[in-house]
């Protein structure tokens, strides 16, 4: 017998949950302004999230998937991408989209049940959301193929949940990315739940990161509550994709500090107290502690940041609530470049009936 293959899965963390530095910081993290930027974005996202849930409760939007506790993942990944890179989202990655030109009001529009919230017209390097779990990594691989053929020096990044790694499409995307050496980064946002199914029931593998090994490229785990680690590892992986056409899988670990969506009730399956235990690791407090230790943050700064972010979110909510309804005929306007003649009659009928729905 001889061993023909061995593999390793590294784990990255720079800041522990007490806000202490545990490894050599990457260059950007030595600039406190950069850290404060990340901190502000996490706070802004959390305020937005709380507001979105309140809007759902009062019927102003529909079902909404909270990002509470996962701010470090999405803010860090978004910060690690370059503007010209292409982003292929799933549905919980608000914190990435808003760094790439998508407005919070667009996000409310989508979850409020309006197609215009999915078009990202002013933010062209982003694909629309992908609700069919696990389907979007293939699109990312396709975009990466196009970039490679055209010799463009950008990279693609896509996010999938831990549950999504069980879908066949997810493996197929990694497999082709490995074989074709595609400039793509597969982020797995491991929030440890797929609705009611825990990570341990998705796969018997010790890590999700190691799934990349079978596809012939590297996988690593990143502490998703450490936004510095998330930004850094994203930057490194994207650079590797751009410069060497080498894919990477980043398993970014956090904890879902919420129900799956507002339509879910996690008390049916999540052991009491689990969320509270994980709360000690949440990403915002950790960075705040570090900033305080550096002497660049205090209660006064915190207060004015909270006020400023709350005002920004209030404004975006107002924009959303004032959005004019779409026209009924928009149901037909984007099916084809030109509506086939046979459907013109249906379109006319819809316009005529538009005023007398029974809803």
């Amino acid at each position: 017998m001889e061993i023909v293959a061995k593999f390793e899965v590294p784990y990255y963390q720079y800041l522990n949950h007490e806000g202490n530095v545990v490894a050599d910081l990457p260059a950007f993290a030595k600039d406190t302004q950069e850290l404060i930027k990340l901190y502000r974005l996490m706070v802004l996202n959390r305020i937005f999230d709380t507001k979105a849930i309140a809007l759902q409760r009062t019927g102003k939007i529909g079902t909404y998937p909270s990002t509470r506790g996962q701010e470090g993942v999405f803010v860090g990944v978004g910060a690690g991408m370059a503007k010209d890179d292409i982003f292929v989202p799933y549905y919980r990655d608000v914190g990435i989209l808003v760094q790439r030109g998508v407005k919070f009001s667009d996000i409310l529009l989508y979850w409020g049940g309006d197609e215009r919230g999915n078009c990202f017209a002013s933010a062209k390097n982003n694909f629309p959301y992908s609700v069919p779990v696990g389907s979007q990594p293939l699109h990312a691989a396709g975009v990466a193929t196009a970039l490679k053929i055209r010799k463009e020096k950008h990279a693609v990044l896509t996010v999938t949940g831990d549950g999504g790694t069980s879908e066949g499409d997810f493996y197929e995307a990694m497999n082709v990315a490995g074989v074709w050496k595609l400039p793509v980064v597969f982020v797995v946002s491991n929030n440890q739940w797929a609705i009611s199914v825990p990570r341990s029931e998705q796969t018997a593998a010790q890590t999700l990161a190691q799934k990349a090994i079978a596809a012939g490229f590297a996988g690593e785990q990143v502490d998703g509550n450490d936004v510095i680690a998330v930004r850094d590892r994203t930057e490194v992986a994207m650079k590797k994709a751009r410069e060497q056409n080498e894919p990477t899988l980043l398993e970014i670990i956090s904890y879902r500090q919420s129900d799956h969506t507002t339509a879910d009730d996690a008390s049916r399956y999540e052991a009491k107290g689990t969320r509270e235990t994980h709360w000690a690791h949440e990403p915002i407090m950790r960075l705040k502690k570090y900033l305080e230790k550096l002497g660049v943050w205090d209660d006064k700064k915190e207060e004015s940041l909270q006020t400023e972010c709350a005002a920004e979110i209030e404004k975006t909510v107002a924009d959303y609530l004032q959005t004019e309804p779409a026209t009924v005929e928009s149901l037909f306007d984007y099916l084809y470049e030109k509506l086939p003649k046979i459907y013109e009659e249906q379109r006319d009928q819809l316009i005529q009936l538009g005023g007398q729905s029974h809803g």
Partner: protein
Amino acid sequence: MAEMTLVEAVNLALAYEMKADKSVVVLGEDVGKNGGVFRATQGLLDKFGPDRVRDTPLAESMIAGISIGMAAAGLKPVAEFQFMGFLYPGYDQIVNHAARIRNRTRGHMTCPVVFRTPYGCGIRSPEHHSESTEAVLAHIPGLRVVIPSSPKRAYGLLLASIRDPDPVIFLEPSRLYRWAKQDVIDDGKALPLDTCFTLRVGTDVTLVTWGAMVKETLAAADLLSQNGVSAEVIDVATIKPLDIDTIIASVEKTGRCVIIHEAAKTGGVGADISALVAERALLSLRAPVQRITGYDTIVPYAKMEKYYLPNEHQIVEAVTNIMEFA
């Protein structure tokens, strides 16, 4: 006897048959502890244990394929796709294997599986949660496609589907899950598959429908009767294979036929029914067959879905027009 909703009746039928038949196994995403996202499998894990109530990893091709293997090996899997819009990764397994394993083995192997899934729009769900694509299943030889439209029919038809020796796609209209309660007797009595249910007897027009549109169709029949028009309402229930005889007999009596479905018009099951009526009852028709359906568009997101769904007034108008035809 107890008053219950359609989704509770689904749950009751599952519990009845799991107790009566140890080969019945329930599987799907979140069907265990969580009891399914609509609570259709609520309580089953506690009653029957994790061997027979299985949360699966998140993969629909796997759910479909593993169910086929389980069924061929002597179990009776009842698998849930969380929403119809997420059945499609399992479509290859359903079309290429479930539907034809009997045929491919000349009857030597069979596939007694039930694939359940909620379907249809009207509950303000997110994107992809409102599909009504029953036609892409009804098109496939070897499949049965069954759609209940009341708590009683959900109970009786689900029992029949589980007991059926061939694969059944059981589509549950999510808009009716908690709509009207009915007394359901938990006596284990199945209702017949491949049979229409005549919900209302009438003489002037035959209204043919299934699933959640039964609601608007019955409301239209009420409005029509106020106008002196007597409508017969047929719930097709099993859209594949069709009980065309019941529909033809009704059209021969009324001379008029209006088909109502939520799915897009083109290639819908309504087209098939319309063709069969034309082929077999042309000389009984006093007016052209009409179809009131969803538009040939993507099902819109929540804000616009009320404009997509046909309503009772459209049905009344269509009937009123053909009453004047001859």
